[in-house]
């Protein structure tokens, strides 16, 4: 395959960036999107140009690093996948593909397609945990009875990989799907109850402080989320916050 690429180039956090056109050839339809980027970068390096910086780590859809906004969608046109799981067979020979970083004021660009998502870490640190005594006499979590239904829903929420596609997709750059997932994961389990009030208050407060927008329930995040996190988690977070204030 031969492709025309329009890619966001930005030297550093303070530089002004722009879209730059590239041509790549010899792309196999079996390649992943990141492998296509590798081919392009090798071409750039052999020409003595600066390769395109992009985040990646596991390349198997579990770390959430590979943030790219491809043809106007987070992680490209396929569903339920990250960029590293996007295959080139989703595109046609001769296509023009636009590639941009995830955009949000709370996710500043570091270089090219790499953005700083540490705002998510700070939200997690504000309450996305339970306090457990790990001094050697830790209680076995399996001794606490949990209904199958609650366990399943908590597990579904816990599959969030913190990729930020929800924020990138949302027209309001809202982080509510991410925070909803993180709040739900604990709200559904007995271990999460003790710190429930402070957790939701502090995580929402941190989310607001980081400058994420307000959810308007368009549902776009749920569609673009690689892990299928449900909008129901946002409703649960809203209920948890109401409960915490009553």
């Amino acid at each position, binding site marked *: 395959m031969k492709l025309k690429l329009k890619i966001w180039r930005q030297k550093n956090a303070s530089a002004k960036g722009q879209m730059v056109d590239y041509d790549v050839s010899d792309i196999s339809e079996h390649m992943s999107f990141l492998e296509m980027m590798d081919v392009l970068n090798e071409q750039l390096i052999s020409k003595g140009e600066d390769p395109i910086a992009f985040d990646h780590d596991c390349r198997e859809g579990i770390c959430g690093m590979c943030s790219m906004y491809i043809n106007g*969608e987070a992680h490209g046109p396929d569903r339920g996948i990250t960029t590293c799981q996007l295959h080139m067979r989703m595109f046609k020979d001769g296509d023009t593909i636009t590639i941009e970083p995830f*955009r949000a*004021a709370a996710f500043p660009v570091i270089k090219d397609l790499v953005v700083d998502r540490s705002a998510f870490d700070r939200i997690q640190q504000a309450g996305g945990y339970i306090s457990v005594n790990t001094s050697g006499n830790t209680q076995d979590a399996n001794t606490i009875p949990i209904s199958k239904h609650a366990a399943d829903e908590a597990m579904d929420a816990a599959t969030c990989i913190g990729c930020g596609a929800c924020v990138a997709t949302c027209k*309001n750059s809202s982080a509510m799907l991410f925070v909803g997932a993180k709040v739900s994961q604990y709200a559904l389990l007995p271990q999460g109850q003790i710190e429930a009030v402070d957790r939701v208050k502090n995580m929402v407060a941190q989310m607001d402080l980081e400058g994420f927008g*307000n959810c308007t329930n368009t*549902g776009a995040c749920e569609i*673009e989320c690689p892990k299928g996190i449900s909008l129901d988690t946002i*409703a649960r977070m809203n209920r948890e916050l109401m409960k915490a204030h009553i």
Partner: protein
Amino acid sequence: MGGFFKSSIGRKVAMALSAFFLMFFLIIHLTVNMTSVFSADLFNELSHFMGTNPLVQFALQPVLLFGVVFHFVLGFILEWKNKKARKVTYFKNNGAANSTWMSRNMMYSGLVILAFLVIHFADFWVHEINVKYINVEPADPTRYYHELVEKFVPIWRVVAYSVAFILLGLHLGHGFTSAFQSMGSTAGRKRALQNLGKAYAVIIPLGFIIIALYHHFNHH
């Protein structure tokens, strides 16, 4: 509770509460207007009651006014904050791939409704205040019907009126179920309530439009 309404989620809840109030009010408004199609006398009677009853005038009316202003002012504030949350916009964004037009354009449908409300207030409310308190005219409990019908004689009014109500339908097409989600309920995600929301978003605007068309084609 003070802290709650300062949070992003609290503001959403406030937005939804004002929206529920407005949606309830629209049912009453449509019901009263609908009587004008069947009986001029009944419409006059109801309008006279609404226009003279102190409870309606000095308790419900200010609450309604507050509700409307609260809803669109908070809407503006949220929209402004949401715009600020993305300083650099996308070169290419395919919003249609994952959301409806209605849900992405609440601000624009809202602005059309607001423009309508300005005309609506100038037509009826300013007129009412004028007749009742400023240039006091003798009370005429039968004037309402003719005042209403007169408004629908020029075709441009009927067209503008219909356009505004179509936009209201789009506003409600997303807003109805969205308000449930904002309140922390997942009911808006269930088929039954989605159908009720669609029915509401079609029936309410269509009702108002039918009344306008009826009077336009039947005035003497």
